[in-house]
């Protein structure tokens, strides 16, 4: 017998294939409350786009800088000023500051997080407003499509307001919170605290808190009217759950607004500011010009709403009519009220559009449930991360990267001119265009004495008239500079070309600095 006997290799069974991950099994392990819906992911996407858009928007060259300047003053002095503290020509003018809380928070934000912080916080406020209105529109229509439409309508109607960062955004946010709660089908115990608390904060942030009280008043009056029309009995009004609740909320809110540094004096100030003659020179305080873009948008929205209300199958609550008519009339009287017209018009327009369209094209009564799964949780969180992480604020918080100032401010911000003034501090009073006053005070040389800033209601009447005399170049305008001891003049190139030409022709002045945004004239022989 020959040949070695080789051990046979041991028999091995073929390796089984690695099992494919069973996503169904994976999802089932996630707690239910963490399984978010596709609808939510869609909302986050939409709101994230809103956040990203406004987060990247450059800061406007007026308002915000003035408020930050006041915030700086309040923080450094540890008290609210009793008289105007920053404009030398307004010395002694009593100063009631309804925006103080915004100013202080804004100052802390910019100190801690830079310009990106301001951009981030303002865009978060706008996003929150959008979220509240999106939620309410969805809740009333059960249609995400119409909810997005409502959000878009709000953004379109209020575009010019949302583009400018200032305490009015905080006022608008409070208004949206209130509108959300008032239109909620079911109030909670928390609302008894939330509604007055919103007014308390509102009254310390912006003078528009009176509109919140007016809105609540419209709800009460509207509900009472509806009941009276339906029952004819006053008793039914008193016993109505909604009337009682809303009336008590109104009273608690009114008391909450008194919790401010000025008490009831704040109401007086809001009243007086609205009647200040200086503000008549400012576009947004003038009667609405329906030929301007914002006027056309307003008219379009009024026409659209009128048609919707004509054809809607939904019962029209009186509060809707009271609120819409009230805000529309207010907007015609002063363009500034367009800001508060927008959210109401957007929500009500969406709701009635949905009802009207369903009447003609009925679709499924209830929307299909939106699938919930861990996948959508990941998508939602991922979207949040992307939008927040790559925003200027996110860059600042996560990467410590400061926003570039030139890209973070509007193209009209006089960066170069202010830098020139910092290097060559002006002697005496600086005559500046109204639009530059705020930034000059914030970023200009310490102690700069500006002629006016955006708080026109604090400028003494004669001073304001002299300001207009220069800007409009009416008779004797050059003597204003002599009268006030102005040795430096700073004007914008965008709208003041005629004034710039005449200043160039004046032998007493020379150009100290000039760029595409601003010109600085300096008197040859200082007085």
């Amino acid at each position, binding site marked *: 017998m020959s040949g070695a006997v080789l051990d046979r290799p041991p028999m091995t069974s073929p390796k089984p294939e690695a099992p494919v991950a069973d996503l169904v099994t994976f999802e089932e392990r996630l707690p239910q409350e963490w399984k978010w819906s596709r609808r939510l992911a869609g909302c986050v996407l939409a709101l994230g786009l809103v956040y990203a858009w406004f987060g990247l928007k450059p800061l406007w060259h007026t308002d915000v800088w003035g408020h930050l300047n006041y915030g700086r003053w309040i923080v450094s002095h540890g008290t609210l000023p009793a008289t105007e503290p920053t404009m030398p020509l307004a010395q002694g003018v009593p100063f009631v500051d309804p925006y103080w809380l915004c100013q202080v928070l804004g100052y802390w934000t910019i100190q801690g997080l830079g310009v990106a912080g301001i951009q981030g916080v303002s865009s978060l406020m706008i996003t929150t407003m959008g979220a509240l209105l999106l939620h309410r529109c969805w809740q009333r229509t059960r249609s995400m499509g119409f909810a997005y439409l409502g959000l878009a309508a709000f953004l379109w109607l209020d575009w010019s307001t949302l583009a400018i960062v200032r305490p009015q955004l905080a006022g608008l946010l409070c208004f949206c919170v209130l509108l959300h709660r008032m239109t909620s089908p079911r109030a909670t115990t928390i609302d008894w605290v939330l509604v007055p608390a919103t007014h308390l904060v509102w009254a310390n942030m912006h003078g528009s808190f009176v509109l919140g009280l007016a809105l609540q008043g419209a709800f009460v009056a509207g509900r009472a009217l509806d009941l009276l029309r339906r029952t004819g009995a006053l008793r039914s009004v008193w016993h109505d759950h909604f009337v009682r609740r809303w009336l008590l909320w109104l009273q608690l809110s009114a008391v909450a607004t008194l919790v401010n540094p000025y008490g009831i004096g704040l109401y007086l100030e809001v009243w007086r500011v609205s009647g200040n003659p200086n503000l008549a020179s400012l576009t947004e305080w003038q009667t609405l010009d329906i030929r301007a873009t914002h006027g056309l948008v307003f008219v379009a929205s009024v026409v659209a709403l009128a048609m919707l209300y004509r054809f809607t199958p939904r019962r029209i609550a009186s509060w809707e009519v009271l609120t819409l008519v009230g805000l529309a009339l207010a907007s015609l009287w002063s363009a500034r009220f367009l800001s508060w017209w927008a959210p109401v018009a957007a929500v009500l327009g969406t709701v009635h559009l949905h009802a009207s369209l369903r009447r003609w094209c009925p679709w499924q009564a209830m929307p299909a449930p939106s699938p919930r799964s861990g996948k959508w949780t990941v998508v939602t969180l991922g979207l949040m991360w992307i939008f927040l992480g790559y925003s200027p604020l996110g860059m600042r918080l996560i990467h410590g990267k400061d926003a570039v100032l030139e890209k973070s401010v509007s193209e009209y911000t006089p960066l170069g001119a202010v830098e020139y003034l910092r290097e060559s501090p002006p002697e005496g009073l600086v005559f500046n265009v109204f639009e530059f006053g705020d930034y000059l005070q914030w970023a200009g040389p310490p102690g700069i004495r500006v002629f006016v800033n955006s708080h026109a209601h604090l400028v003494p009447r004669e001073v304001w008239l002299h300001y207009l005399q220069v800007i409009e170049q009416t008779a004797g305008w050059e003597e204003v500079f002599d009268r006030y*001891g102005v040795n430096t003049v700073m004007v914008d190139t965008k709208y003041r070309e005629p004034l710039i030409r005449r200043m160039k022709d004046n032998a007493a002045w020379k150009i100290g600095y000039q760029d595409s945004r601003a010109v600085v004239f300096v008197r040859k022989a200082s007085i």
Partner: protein
Amino acid sequence: MRRNVSIEAVLIVQVVFLVGVVTSLVTAGPSLRGRLEREFTGRPVLPVVPIPRETPLTIEPLYDDPEVVSDEELAAVLKKVQPRFPKSQLKPNFVEHALRTWWLKAEFQDPDVMSGQALKDYLVDHGKYLASWGNDVEPLLMDRPEGVAIRWGKETGASVHHDHWLASLTEAGVGLHEPVFTPSRQDMTIYNVLQEALRDFRVDEVETEWSALAFGLWLPPTKSWQSNNGRELSFDILAQRLMRGDKKLGVCSGTHRVYSLMVLIRLDDEYHILSPEIRTAAYSHLERVRDLISESQFPDGHWASNWADGKVSVEKPISDEAFKHVIATGHHLEWLAIAPTDLHPPREVILKAADWVIRTTTEQTQSQILERYTFFSHVGNALSLWRKTHPADFWKKWEAEHPYDPEAPVSALDVR
């Protein structure tokens, strides 16, 4: 099923609401309550400023310098600026200037010259004004809800400058309780005029020189007060307002601003009505004025209306009317008389200015003086201050030694 809000909750909220509103009203300060009242009732807010004295303060001159003006020269000038006015259509502005120069105590042997009392009576009594002007012009004294306003401006029979009436009576030493007879009231006093002036004063109005002067002589040690639009005013603000703008601007080529500023500094010496920073700024401002008038004096001693241009004023003279030289020179001598020496230009500048103004004044005929009385009155006052006296006191002494001669002409010039 919805649970209705209980009655207890309703009551609790009513209590909270009432307590909140009442607390807010109670804790509101008086000025806020006043403003609330004004907004709801339409009645004006009339803040009252406490006046701590019954007679106004005076700014005493500092120097008795016969080299600047001798007794004879002073007498000659004062004789020119005696208030010898026509009775009909008597200009309040003339009377005011005469009163502030001659004071209440002025008395003259010449019956054609109005005494201090007569000057004062004309200004505070509508009846006397009416006798001079008749019914064809508006009254000088105007009734207000709680005060008296003075009609001022370029209109016929008006006071010309804002608060000049008040400042003139104040400088003349007229007391707070001096009666003021308006067209419809007999119970008003200087106090009511002063309160009205305090209320309606606006920092940014065209003329603030005399308001600052009047307030300065009445209010210290009070440093701040409120106007009727709620603005908090102070002597700091007034001083800054007087310093504001080109020095050439302001009434009388900007010289009244300088005088009023000097008065505020003198008041600050005793009553500390200015903050240290503003006092320093005001002092620096006057130092600059000193330097400018040192450079801008003409060889014959006068200053022109563009004195604030410094040496350019002399190198490139403008065509000024002669009376404007009197204005500038007389007014500068006036404030220098109450200023400390470190604010003086070199002595020869003062001497030359005094020589010029004495010569120029005594060379005028009486009708020429009358035509420009207000400017020449400042000359008389300025020169008296340089002798540490007042025109009324000096003239009384002079007339005792040189009695009035009704046969003699007012001046040799008028004989010619």
